[in-house]
């Protein structure tokens, strides 16, 4: 019984740690004419600005956008407040 509970707890922890997804918000631009973008993106790898930059640059470049900078990384708690600002670029890439 104890083992089952322990294993359940362990599973639950594992699940919760897996669910603590990582997001980043960034700024990007297009030239001629100048267009600016503020967006939020989900990071699959390690939760850091470097990883976010590395993941984001090719995705944006495919659509003709140039990454300016990554503002920061955050988890689910920070998503809601950024949803309004990011608009069409909310979790687009």
């Amino acid at each position, binding site marked *: 019984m104890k083992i089952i509970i322990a294993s359940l707890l362990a599973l639950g922890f594992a699940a919760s740690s897996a669910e603590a997804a990582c997001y980043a*918000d960034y*700024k990007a631009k297009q030239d001629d004419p*100048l267009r600016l973008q503020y967006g939020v993106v989900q990071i699959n790898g390690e939760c850091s600005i470097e990883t976010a930059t590395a993941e984001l640059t090719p995705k944006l470049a495919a659509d003709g956008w140039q990454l300016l900078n990554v503002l920061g990384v955050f988890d689910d708690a920070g998503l809601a407040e950024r949803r*309004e600002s990011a608009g069409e670029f909310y979790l687009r890439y």
Partner: protein
Amino acid sequence: MQASSISAIEARQTGNRIVIAGIAAIVLILLVAAILLFINLPDANAFNARVEQLFVENDDLTTRAEIKLLEILAQSGTAFSATLDSYRFVIFVLLVFSTSLLIAAVAFLVMLIAMNRRMGQIERKGIEVNSLMIAREQNTVLLNNIEFKLTESAIETLSVLAEARMDDEVLSGAEIEGVISGRDSSDCDEAAGATRIKRLRDTLGNQMVSELLIKNIARRGYVLAIDKDVIRMV
């Protein structure tokens, strides 16, 4: 007359050299000015770069309205850069215009200097004959549009001399007498031609001096027809 025309040609040659040097200097200066001007005109992308920098540097500029506003700012900057292009063209046209004006000014300046020199030479030389018109029917000769009345024989002598001058010929006294009397010059006396020349000199010289130097004012008397400042007693 010969000497003065030679020096006039010399003046023109040095003048030409000055003109070419001056024009080259003007073109060079304005070319440098144009290049500097075009280099220093702001780039069309300067505005966009500035807006982008603002966007990156301010982390809280994230709402959609703010981003839209920044984009509009950049677009108005781009519109302004199009205006700058037209300014560039206007400036270029003005530069070309000023170049041509300056070139003309230098050319006229040098022409004026040469003209002044020539005028000075003419003034020093006294009388220089620019035109000689012989009216045989009226027995008059117009020297620089000053009318002189001559006797028939004097007009004849002057005409012969003028025709000889046009053919670049020099006539002896006997030849002059021969042409006027219609005989062969070998039959003519040298002294007869010399007498004709003397008479021509006397009448023409007398009238020229009275016209140019010693004037007769009717019922008042005689006066020297020169500026009183140029008179000096030694």
